């Protein structure tokens, strides 16, 4: 399987893997930053990615100051893309990213082919954690769906996946689907959440559950699935503070459908094969302030880097990745980036993106994005270089379901010698 043996289709400055919200934004920004030959590779028949099945509104509040549906949000980017001479290949599956060389892909039109490029932007998004990863015991009937699969069936195929529904996991897609299925006439019995807090955005709990009288059962999980052809019932149980089911709390709920909204996993199979170092906390790449991975010339952004709550921030992050990829491809900016400051997730912080900064070459200000480990009220988000607090924000409340941001300015890191990390913490107000 020597990539060189495969026919070479074309050469590009920047190739973007994935034509969803991240890929579209990255490609536009790469072109605008001076890369003249930009390519987007998309496996579906159309661009837009998962936005195409998100027909609810709420997209674009930050980016455009208005509430758009998913397809409307995607359409804006597709229009902007179309106004630029950016190449798009749909129905094209990337098989391999070869560092320093390019990309191997397959499509019905071109067969297996390769393209050469100077920089690659990884924008493959994420997948949903399936039932098997939770090891829910019981039978394996029809009627157990991930929330996203159910969303596709309802919104794209126009069919209902069930009538009596229990949803496990209060991630945003699960909450959105609770409302969507209710609007289509199904009966959503409850949403059960393993943790003592919801994994979704507050606004989704209010608009999708509270407004429809759908109960949210915190500290609950599904411990059994029954049914031969189709699901006939599930068993719920309370969990203790170590998340183990408490014997005697089981409740059997007759239903025909179990939806799972139990976590999203970045799709990094291509990245791993390309030698990109993966952060076990995010399951995405380790990146620096230019969103470049451990492999030179390979950048990552959007949900393949870390799972976001809002598409607006995906677009913003991806634009930065596209711009940096273009600069890399055009040979602008020396490869000597000076000392690197490692960014460390300290008390109360699960991870940070990026995980290193180059004070000499980084932009004037960089946004650190991260998640907290638990619910915390009246607190501060702070970044320390040694004992010096270089950035801080007060917050009334932080929850793991909502991504946090903190800006760090290059000038504040000027004195850093590289041996001292920048530590991000949640602390008392």
């Amino acid at each position, binding site marked *: *399987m020597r*990539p060189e*043996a*495969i*026919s070479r289709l074309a050469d590009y400055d920047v190739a973007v893997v994935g034509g969803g919200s991240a890929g579209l934004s990255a490609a536009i920004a790469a072109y605008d930053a001076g890369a003249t030959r930009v390519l987007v590779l998309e*496996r579906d028949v159309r661009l837009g990615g998962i936005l195409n099945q998100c027909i609810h509104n709420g997209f674009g509040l930050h980016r455009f100051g208005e509430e758009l549906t998913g397809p409307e949000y995607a359409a804006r980017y597709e229009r902007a893309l179309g106004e630029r001479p950016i190449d798009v290949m749909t*129905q094209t*599956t990337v*098989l391999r990213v070869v560092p320093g060389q390019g990309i*191997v892909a*397959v*499509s*019905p*039109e*071109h*067969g*297996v*082919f390769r393209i050469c490029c100077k920089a690659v932007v990884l924008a493959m998004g994420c*997948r*949903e954690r*399936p*039932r*098997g*990863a939770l*090891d829910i*015991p*019981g*039978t*394996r*009937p*029809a*009627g157990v769906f*991930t929330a*996203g*699969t159910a969303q*596709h*069936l*309802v919104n*794209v*195929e*126009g*069919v*209902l*996946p*069930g*009538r009596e529904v229990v949803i496990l996991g209060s991630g945003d897609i699960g909450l959105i689907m609770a409302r969507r299925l209710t609007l*289509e*006439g*199904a009966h959503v019995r409850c949403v059960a959440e393993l943790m003592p807090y919801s994994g979704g955005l507050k606004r989704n709990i209010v608009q999708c559950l509270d407004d429809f009288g759908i109960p949210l059962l915190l500290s609950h999980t599904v*411990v059994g*699935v*029954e049914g*031969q*052809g*189709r699901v006939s019932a599930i068993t719920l149980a309370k969990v203790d503070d170590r998340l183990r*089911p408490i014997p005697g709390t089981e409740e059997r709920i007759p239903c*025909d459908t179990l939806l799972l909204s139990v976590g999203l996993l970045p799709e990094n199979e291509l990245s*791993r094969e390309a030698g990109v170092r993966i952060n076990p906390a995010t399951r995405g790449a380790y990146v620096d302030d230019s969103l470049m991975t451990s492999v030179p010339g390979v950048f990552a952004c959007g949900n393949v880097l870390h799972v976001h709550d809002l598409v607006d921030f995906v677009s913003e992050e991806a634009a930065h990745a596209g711009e940096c990829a273009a600069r890399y491809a055009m040979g602008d900016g020396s490869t000597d980036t000076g000392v690197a400051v490692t960014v460390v997730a300290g008390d109360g912080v699960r991870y940070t993106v990026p995980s290193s900064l180059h004070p000499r070459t980084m932009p004037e200000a960089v946004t650190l994005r991260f998640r907290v480990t638990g619910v915390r009220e009246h607190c501060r988000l702070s970044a320390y270089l040694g004992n010096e607090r270089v950035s801080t924000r007060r917050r009334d409340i932080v929850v793991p379901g909502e991504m946090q941001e903190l800006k760090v300015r290059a000038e504040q890191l000027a004195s850093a010698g590289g041996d001292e990390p920048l530590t991000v913490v949640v602390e008392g107000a």
Partner: protein
Amino acid sequence: MGDPTWDVVVVGAGVCGCAIARELSRLQASVLVVEAREDVCCGTSKANSAIVHAGFDAPTGSLMARLNVEGASLFPQLSRDLDFAYERIGSLVVCTREEDLPALRALLERGRANGVPELSIVGRDDLVRMEPNVSDAAVAALWAPTGGICDPFDLTCALAENAAANGVSFSLNERVTGLHRLPDDTWGVSTTRGTRVARVVVNAAGVHADEVHGMASIQPMKIVPRRGQYELLDTTAGNHVRHTVFALPTKMGKGVLVTPTVHGNLLVGPTAEDIEDKDGTQTTAEGLARVREASMLTVRDIPFRETITSFSGLRAHRPEHEFAIGEVPDAPGFVDCAGIESPGLSASPAIGRMVAGIVRDILGLSEREGFVATRRGFPRLDRISLEDWDELVRKDPAYGRVVCRCCRVSEAQIRDACRRVPGARSVDGVKRRVGATMGRCQGGFCTPRIMQILCEEVPDLDLLGVCKSGPGSELAVARDKDGIGGEAHEA
């Protein structure tokens, strides 16, 4: 129902029923396979360890031992003829205590007596070289290079397709409900679809073989469903072991096996629980916990967080723990192929030969001309070279449309699976034939697309009719805003 008199009706389209049918298709006989479920390979054959055992386990002189060793020796040629996934990766039986070494040596001697070739005992140093993640407690192992792994779906479908290509008929969704002798010494086979007439009936009904046996004979037979639960890990964990690793059965317990699969996953299991319910294929929290715990006996650091699914299957266990194969004395023309539990998959090619031989002798059948021994398999896009994949796309662009991203299955293979005889009629039928939905996302992304393709390929099927497996497992219940909560809305 105007049905002909069949020379042979085979009850059950598991791996044995299909192997028997294929061997019978070499003969001048009309053969019908009736299967209660919606597809071939729906019972014991679909959920097991997928191991081709070398043959050292069964007692020397038993039918199990003989057919296992013979079956295992047939696999390499059969896998070439029928183009199914099989790899002779070898197996290790790991001994973790010095005091159990005599038992390991006894296993070696039994294997040699059974006729298993190339057996040897390897010491700890060699063992660690062969299997770096073997348990720290491992002291030695029995090495059997002829042990292998296969894809039981692929094997069973290949046997069925090849049998069909050689003239065997299949009737699915047809359950046998009774047997009676007719005045002309043929058998009347009552089914959920009417009555079939057969000169010989072969009972290959898996966990239901005792019921079918009881319809023909007054001699008692008992099959106990023995449940085995498994954990299947992502391909990222597939290299954790390189061979099939068994635990030496000791007083401490039987242990579970840890093995790579032909798809590059890691499989851990099974438990062994005797149950009553012949549909009792549910997993349990205790069972899965036992699998994880028992695996640690022989292999360390198994990354169970990479688990993508768990499942369980039922072995057709007879208390005698021996295959029951042969014409039943009080039921002339009725041939049992019952109690086929492990190593039944390994023995299946030999079982097919043996049962076909019995039928041939009863009916005095001779070979027919024109038997085609080979069958075209499905291309494995995750295994073939990029050049070969490119060739496929040139011939059929649908090979360039990847539907199942996790296992790299294209639209072309899915359509092909639907067009085979017997072909895929459900999402699971597609999965069994070409592996789509078997990967890390477990069909999250590709299920809707597979449903569409099924509708395009299967006559009179629409999205509401598409099933995960058999009837009653429909994936969608209604059109949007249609028939729910009372009256349908206007379009």
